[in-house]
């Protein structure tokens, strides 16, 4: 057999390995109910429940932040994040959590927010300017 073909076969083998590995490492999007049923880490997409308390008190513990999120199926769950509270968290429109369920709470190790940040949203902020300047 030609060496060229051997190299070709090796490449194909590695490429298949890569794809299998990508698939094996890849996670899934799920709901809180899915998270209860599996031991694996997964992604949960949902919205912050603004009606319930968000807890972050750095003077007590700078690495504890908890809040309630409603996933896309409508299930609500308490989420605990070992880190600081992202400062514009209240403004988030959508949250993607990565983590796992433990004792009925969802432990997130990563929070990705989609915010209507002032840098992406086209919303004109109108300021009324007075005709008489103050002095």
């Amino acid at each position, binding site marked *: 057999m*030609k*060496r060229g073909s051997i*190299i070709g076969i090796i*490449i194909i083998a*590695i*490429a298949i390995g*890569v*794809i299998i*590995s*990508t*698939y094996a*490492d*890849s*996670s*899934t*999007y799920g709901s809180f109910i899915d998270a209860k049923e599996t031991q694996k*880490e*997964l*992604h949960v*997409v949902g919205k912050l429940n603004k009606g319930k308390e968000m807890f*972050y008190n*750095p*003077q*007590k*513990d*700078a*690495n*504890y932040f908890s809040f309630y999120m409603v996933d896309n199926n409508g299930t609500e769950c308490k989420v*605990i994040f*070992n*880190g*600081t*509270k992202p*400062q*514009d968290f*209240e*403004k988030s429109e959508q949250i*993607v959590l*990565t983590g796992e369920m*433990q*004792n009925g*709470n969802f*432990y997130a*190790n*990563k929070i*990705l927010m*989609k915010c209507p*940040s*002032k*840098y992406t949203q*086209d*919303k*004109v902020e*109108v*300021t*009324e*300017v*007075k005709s008489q300047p*103050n*002095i």
Partner: protein
Amino acid sequence: MDTVFVGEHLLPGKIGQFFIVLSFGAALLSLISYYFASTNTNKLDTSWRNLGRFAYSLNMASVIATGCCLFYIIYKHYFEYHYAWAHSSTTLPVYYIISCFWEGQEGSFWLWTFWQGVLGLILIFTARSWENSVMTTISLSQVFLASMLLGVEILGIKIGSSPFILLRDAIEAPIFSRANYLSLIPDGNGLNPLLQNYWMVIHPPTLFLGFASMIVPFAYGIAGLWMKRYAEMVKPAIAWSLFAVMILGTGIIMGSFWAYEALNFGGFWAWDPVENASIIPWITLIAGVHVLIAYKNSGHSYFTALFLIIISFILVLYASFLTRSGILGETSVHAFTDLGMSGQLLVYMFVFVLLATVLIVQNWKNLPITKKDEDTYSREFWLFIGAITLIISCIQIIATTSIPVFNAIFGSKIAPPTNPIAHYNKWQIAIAVVIAFVSAFSQFLKYKKTDMRKFYISVVVYMVVAALLTGVGVYITGIYTNFMYILLTFAALFSIIANGKLLGDALKGKWKLAGSAVAHIGFALILLGALIAAATNKVISVNNTGIGFGEEFAKSNNPRENIILYKNTPIKMNDYMVTYKGDSTSGVNTYYKVNYQVLDAKGALKENFDLYPNAQQNIKMKQIVASPDTKHYLLHDIYTHVSSVPLKEEEHENHDGHSDDENYDTPIVHQVAIGDTVRYKEGFIIVKGINKNVKIENLPLKDNDVAIGLTLEVETPEGKTQAEPIFLIKGNNKLDFGKKLDEQGLKLRFTNVLPEKNKLELTVYQKQKTDRKDWIVMKAIVFPYINLLWGGTIIMVIGFLLSIFRRAKELKSA
């Protein structure tokens, strides 16, 4: 009747839009002209070529004119234009106006088309017999880029997005029905604070020059096929590929340095899809350079070389599709938002894929492909193996980065790996080991055939030396616990000394090899620096003081990486005594002064430095944008950023019955003379004297106006500071300009002069104690040996430069 709007400046936009359309038309004309110039059989007829040159120059001039108009609009703060409104503000310093330029998609397309234009001009002057065919491809690409800025609708399809769109056309809002709507929009949205960094002024232009220059080797590859000058294209392609990888590599590392210096994710590379998108074409073109050189010296691997320079540009287009179409969505934090141009970007990519595929298929039988295998002990064979390894590296990065694309195509719902860094590193460290080994031992190989005995002797000798160095290195850096880390250190050190030998030979007279030796040493240092810094960086702000939140924490093994610091209360972190000293505000940034001290065993001060991590507080959005500060040592860095700070209260402006004074306790009025001392809660104020030479900004004084300043020295627990409130009689009115000392929570006003008592009236305002929130939550990381990474980059770029000089010289002598 249409509303007549007040105060709009429509002319610069109209001129700009005109030049956009002109640049599109000129690019099209240039494409047609160069196409006919290339296919013209009469070599003496230069009329098509001249027309092409004219059209191309016209395109370049229009692109520059478009840029000038856009710059003018942003510089003049014409917020009637959406681009200026969305990306700039009046408070922005002039040098960051340049960054506004490329914050938006339109501006970054402009940058790309500008660089492509410049490169085309260089080719017109230097490409000689290649001009017509190479410029045809470049003009085609220029047509596509110009169309990205068009912003016109043809047959109901919106083509491109113009930077000159008016705010009132871009956004629907009731205020736009008012003729004077502009007076209600006093300021723009401003530039994302993270981009307000000097690296952001030079990183995007470098990166885009890199992306733009990838088209030159591609165009030579296409021209070689089209003109059937298969082998001839190799020499110019090598020179231009080296240029492209040098610039793109520099741009990528600049971005990485920016991330390290200005972002708070605590690292220099995160395998974010946007980062991946820029490094993939770099890796394929690096592979391309090596195989082109192998082909030039041995006649092997022509197709691989051609394939690599073509795919590199296609991958640039794929990268811009990924980052600009919004498809990355949930997987990346810093991709552009969708402007509805994904279709256009796909067409751009598929046209170039199709062009390359058709030409390769047509010419397949004639391509100079050897039927014979290379010798195993030959340099060309290992150059080829190295390139194949790099391709595998790319396949892995593309596979994972493209998960959202697969989801879009197949309707699946796969999520990216939960721990992307571990996922990528697993593959890429192994690949880096192979690359470093190949780049080391192939230096002992010759083209065509090598003496095996000699080869093995040198390899074994150098490997033994490398192994000894590795032993020392892993012991010092403490990475001996991981086998792959040891292996990579060994491979990188092997590469450094093997290429060091080559450099030694180069200095003895074989100067031709210097470039490659230096670049390989640089690359090996990058691998070493990245490995050590990434493997051994250590969060030192570990919080051990957290008060219990019950059992739930015990189970979670997340490190507790943030720590709260109260003002003037030192906390020990590793070897450092860390104290938060207070904050100060400059412009939009609040700087938090954090003092680090190291004491030796006897208690004497060994090290003492202050870091100023900053945060931009956006009171309206109740958010902060934090940037780190880093102390650089030769062998390690100490990196610090604040993760949470008390939000400043929005201070009341003097309007609607509210005044700034509401933020303070009831003021205390003191009648003082020079030399008096006035106490406040935490210190005292000494009245030093009177300043009669006061100038007030923006307030011209008439002859009978009086302005006097009261020179005060404020003694605070933190030290002395000066203040000079001003008292003013203007006409018949008494006015005064108070002085705020935010750090002390003080406001001092010079409110009256009492000549009859020979006294001056000083009013002291002090904030309530409870209002002064004196803490920060911060994170500190030590990065050991990270300078190897940055230093390696500089060395690699020098190596590329040397190689470019060599190849350019060969090109001229050819």
